[in-house]
């Protein structure tokens, strides 16, 4: 997937009513692309075997 740029980020943010200035948009694009890469890498794991339970230590023992 191609990286998102500052203009993409501005459009996405506007759709959520989040105002962005120019400096923010550039860094947010880097951060969001880092997230998307890291989460795409998870596709190599056997995710279907894991139910997405949140933390629940009482259930462990």
């Amino acid at each position, binding site marked *: 997937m191609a990286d998102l740029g500052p203009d993409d*980020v501005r459009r996405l943010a506007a759709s*959520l*009513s*989040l105002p962005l200035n120019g400096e923010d948009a550039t*860094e*947010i694009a*880097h951060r969001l692309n880092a*997230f998307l890469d890291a*989460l795409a890498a998870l596709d190599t794991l056997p995710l279907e075997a894991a139910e997405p339970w949140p933390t629940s230590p009482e259930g462990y023992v």
Partner: protein
Amino acid sequence: MAHQPRGLCVSTAAEHLAFASAARQAALIREKRISPVELVTIYLDRIGRLDGHLRAFITVCSESALAEAERAQAEAARGAWRGPLHGVPFAVKDQLDTAGILTTSGSALLKLNVPTEDSTVVAKLKAAGGILLGKLNLTEFALGGTLRFPYGQPRNPWNPEHDPGGSSSGSGIAAAAALCSLTLGEDTGGSVRSPASYCGAVGLRPTWGRVSRHGCFPAACSMDQVGPLTRTVEDCALVLTLIAGYDAKDPTSSRRAVPDYRATLGAGVKGTRIGVITELVDGAETQAEVRGAVREAARGLAALGAMVEDVSLPLIPHAGGVFMALCDSEAAGRHKPWLSARADEYDAGTRRRLVAAGLIPAVPLHRAARARALIREQLLEALGKFDLLLAPTSPHPAPAISFHTAPVTSKEEAARRFFGRRSYTTPASLAGVPAISVPCGFTAAGLPIALQLMGRPFAESTIFAAAGAWENAAGLVDRHPPIAAA
């Protein structure tokens, strides 16, 4: 008042007392060898001399602390003891509510926020006789990555040009530089353990559910946990004993009985099975000095009788990215109304972090939620074989403050800065297991290095026994930051 260590070296005696453990100070008060007023006065003096530079405190409760100390002194004189912390001054991260006292969560957005009720943990420490000395600095909303701290730049007492760690920055500084007897922090992904590591203090993330979060401003509710930051393992055990337990005001708190964690401190590590996580000790990000100190500590624990061997947990390197996606998306949802209406009042670092997470699409986020379960499963499986897992708390010592304030120029740099080191502390957060950070050495430049011990859910006693044994063997407790002695 019957304080005995008098003479020409008054400042040395005060220094010595300031760095004593809270447990020792409490014993001295019981023995009437020091008074609560004397102890509070010593800390107020140190805060006055040192905190203008270190910026550990957002609010110092001088008048109320002295008034409480006088009351504690009068009670002690007639033998009316409130509890194990009678007359002992403590300070808490400004994320924890305190009745009638400004509570900012480190943000300008809450610069006028004065709660009407104490958080449960603060109420418990007060009930044990503790005296609230002040509220401690933190990264904005306990999220990390603050560029401009609204209440002053917190600095590492070992080198003020370096980061003290976060988000419980002030808690780490105040414990290490002896600005109070003990502190509380809050750990979502390492926010107690990181400042403990960078500042050379002891910090515990308890099992998720062990301690009430009532009155704690949430960072990410599914992983937040309040924990102690202290100068010794014994103090950590003492504080956990006092703050743990069920709270009807927090439905996620556990109903399990709370043991006296200090009672088993002397159990040692003979026969304890410890797995050394190779992905973290030997990982490419782990600096050589850190690797060397942690490997040396593992050998030290083996010499004390532990059964130590390497263990591979291949999912661990994913933990940082998974944690950040889950934590930050929770936080982004919580902050959405303020982000829409008051965006300019946030620090730019916090705002960028929250907005970026708010834009993660649902499908990748769901992947992260499933990956959390896989990482938890792998960690718990290892904890079925081992009693404890050992790793560095951080891959490097405290970085320069300027490292955090430099602009982010690429996605690769974003991943390195925001995900990489978090893979060291977030596995315990994702799994909900307890973990402690204990000093294990110093770099050539004099910055602290720390090891981390993770345990099974609700097995804090095992952690304390091993950490205490290591602390005794390492003999690092008496090494104090140079700035604190200035």
